[in-house]
């Protein structure tokens, strides 16, 4: 009975109406709530409409990614990474593969790297389109959201063309990619990017100077540089505070140091800055993709190093080394050398890093992910306290919490 009463008090359906009269009202936002995309719960204390206290509770989407990885072969983890940040699955694929490559101490062929840059930036754009669109939708700009989803659809068709899937991409391998660019991909890419640009222009007109929109997001959820750093922010959230930290520049990986792009920064770190930073990053990513497509070198898309690359079928059936290699790779998997590494990449939300431990046995000892939005959710209380309850929506929309990478 006591359990029932506490449960009722916690879910905000207390049966006595007298506690409405108390000055501070506890209200449970989530886990099933329209603004809580992904699943998360905010236990919020309200004084009238003002938030006086808030406590995020995460873990509703915990699937044991890290533990599951320890019981898989190295290569079997790649499909799991699709489901981490499910609005930019290719960036997760790339992040994990590059981490394992770092463990091996190898680098993928240049053509593979350039392709990864293109696909990664496409994923970054889909990530930002989803985040900005969903956040705008929740404060009422529904049309804006659907226009962005239309743009995202163009890009997901490209992803589908490349990988055969929209979300469950499973595209990269250690030392390259599973597939090369399909025929006509680069011309399709150009076509889709120009469509994206026209939609961006249209949406920019619709929202960026809209008085109601600016009123809703300006000075809402601001966080200072110092707080942002001490909470371990990264990605667009940190850049909106004015710190130009981008893993692609700070710790260049892949071929990003050969490409020319700018890192947009905000000044106040409020929701409006985050919106502008993301919009600008979409444009920067578009330009990165164009540069990478221009510079696309010829050559192999997968390393031909032994025990990393499945031998060709003619070798498997034609000579004994090929057959043995194939058998060992299927039965035992990859054997990265013993050691531990941390490989940060710039995910859609920020620093998306894998910490890997290998004992050389063929099974991962530890696969640890540093999810960028974990830190953002942690900072929700300091961003929301003192604001109105309606401000939770743009603030939470702007941090782009993705349940998959947050709860793993």
């Amino acid at each position, binding site marked *: 009975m006591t359990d029932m009463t506490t449960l009722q008090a916690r879910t*905000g*359906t*207390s*049966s*006595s*109406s007298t506690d*409405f009269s108390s000055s501070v*009202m506890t*209200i449970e*936002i989530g886990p099933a*709530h*329209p*603004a809580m995309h992904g699943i998360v719960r905010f236990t919020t204390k*309200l004084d009238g*409409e003002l938030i006086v206290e808030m406590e995020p509770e995460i873990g509703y989407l915990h699937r044991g990614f890290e533990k599951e990885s320890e019981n898989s072969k190295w290569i079997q983890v790649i499909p799991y990474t699709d489901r981490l940040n499910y609005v930019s699955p290719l960036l997760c694929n790339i992040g994990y593969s590059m981490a394992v490559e770092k463990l091996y101490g190898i680098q993928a062929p240049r053509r593979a790297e350039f392709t990864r840059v293109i696909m990664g930036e496409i994923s970054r754009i889909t990530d930002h389109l989803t985040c900005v669109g969903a956040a*705008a939708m*929740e*404060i*009422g*700009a*529904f*049309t804006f959201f*659907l*226009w962005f989803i*239309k743009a995202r659809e163009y890009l997901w068709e490209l992803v589908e063309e490349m990988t055969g899937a929209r979300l469950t991409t499973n595209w990269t391998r250690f030392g390259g990619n599973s597939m090369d660019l399909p025929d006509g991909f680069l011309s399709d890419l150009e076509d889709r990017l120009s469509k994206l640009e026209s939609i961006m222009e249209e949406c920019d007109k*619709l*929202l960026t100077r*809209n008085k*109601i*929109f600016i*009123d*809703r997001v300006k000075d809402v959820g601001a966080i200072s540089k110092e707080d942002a750093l001490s909470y371990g922010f990264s990605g667009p959230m940190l850049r909106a505070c004015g710190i130009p930290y981008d893993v692609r520049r700070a710790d260049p990986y892949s071929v990003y140091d050969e490409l020319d792009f700018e890192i947009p920064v905000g000044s106040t770190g409020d929701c409006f800055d985050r919106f502008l930073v993301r919009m600008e990053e979409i444009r920067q990513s578009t330009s990165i993709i164009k540069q990478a497509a221009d510079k696309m070198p010829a050559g192999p898309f997968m390393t031909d190093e032994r025990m990393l690359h499945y031998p060709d079928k003619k070798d498997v059936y034609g000579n004994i080394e090929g057959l043995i290699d194939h058998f060992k790779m299927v039965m035992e998997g990859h054997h990265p050398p013993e050691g531990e590494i941390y490989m940060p990449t710039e995910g859609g939300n920020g620093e998306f890093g894998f910490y890997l431990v290998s004992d050389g046995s063929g099974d991962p000892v530890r696969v640890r992910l540093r999810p960028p939005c974990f830190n953002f959710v942690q900072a929700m209380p300091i961003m929301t306290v003192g604001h*109105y*309850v*309606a*401000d*939770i*929506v743009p603030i939470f929309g702007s941090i782009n919490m993705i349940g998959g990478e947050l709860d793993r």
Partner: protein
Amino acid sequence: MDFLLEIIMTPAILACLKIAVIILLFAMPLGTLLTLMERKWSAMIQDRVGPNRANIGKFTGNGLLHIAADGLKSIFKEDTIPKGANGFLYLIAPFFGLIAAVAIFAIIPIAGPIGNFTFQVTDVNPGLLFIFAITSLNVYGAVLAGTSSNSKFALLGGTRASAQMISYEVFMGLALMGIFMVYGTTRVSGIVNGQNEYWFGNLVPMWGIFTQPLGFILFFTALVAETKRAPFDAPEGESEIVAGYFLEYSGMRWSAFMLAEYVSLVGVAALMTTLFFGGYHVPWLHLWENAPQWIVTILQILKFTFFTVVFCWFQIQLRWTVPKFRFDQTMGLGWKKLLPLSLVNIIVTALVILTLA
């Protein structure tokens, strides 16, 4: 036959008949149709198709059957009452809004009088003051639903709705003062006939929108806020307080809230047409000497319906174009900007009238 006509022409029966015709043949069908039209129009704005799947055999009516499907669904849904809710208040709350929405049509003329017969349920002396009285009844629906549901989200929605509607009523009245001054009456028939005058010979009709441009914007804003439509739908607050005051309702009671919203949308449109766009008067029709009465009446009904639909469309377009205000911003806009503006409007109108007189 004469006897039958006599019965029909008794004022009480006649009023009932008019209520039936105006409300059942004009307001309700238009309101119901708008539930579909809103989805279709928003689909057009957003490059979608919109609802088109409800069917009888191969007939879909391009989505028209969704109206019937929605109605049937909500009739057969369980009418739930949450635990700890105040049963009686909870049950009657949905109908306040519906009654208030429908009652607006009591004083709106949809065509000019033919002899003694008017196309208006009643032309009460207080006229528009009746509208203010009725729309304030609307508040009770939201407040009762909010407080009786025993849900904190509903409570927040209810308090927001009451604060918003009460404060917007204040300057809704003030915004209309200009109209009262220009046409010198609060009676609806007086205002409508006043708009049939012309400026510069026969060039410009003296419609409310030309005599009271600021009053038009203010009154329209106030009405949209009063009906809690976007961008002033903080009381519903879809994204933060889920559905606000009618969160706990289901089935037909929930539909009553929805229907009230759409009927009052039509009500707003009809009111705007009546007060600011010459009501049923077709402009420049008086230039056609001895036009047959029946053609005039049909033209008047068509003109009135056309402007009403245009205003319905405008409200829907508004909803799907702009984001929503936060609750405190709605209140700030009302008290800090629109209220002073409507006072300025009154003073300027008064000065102009004094100078011209």
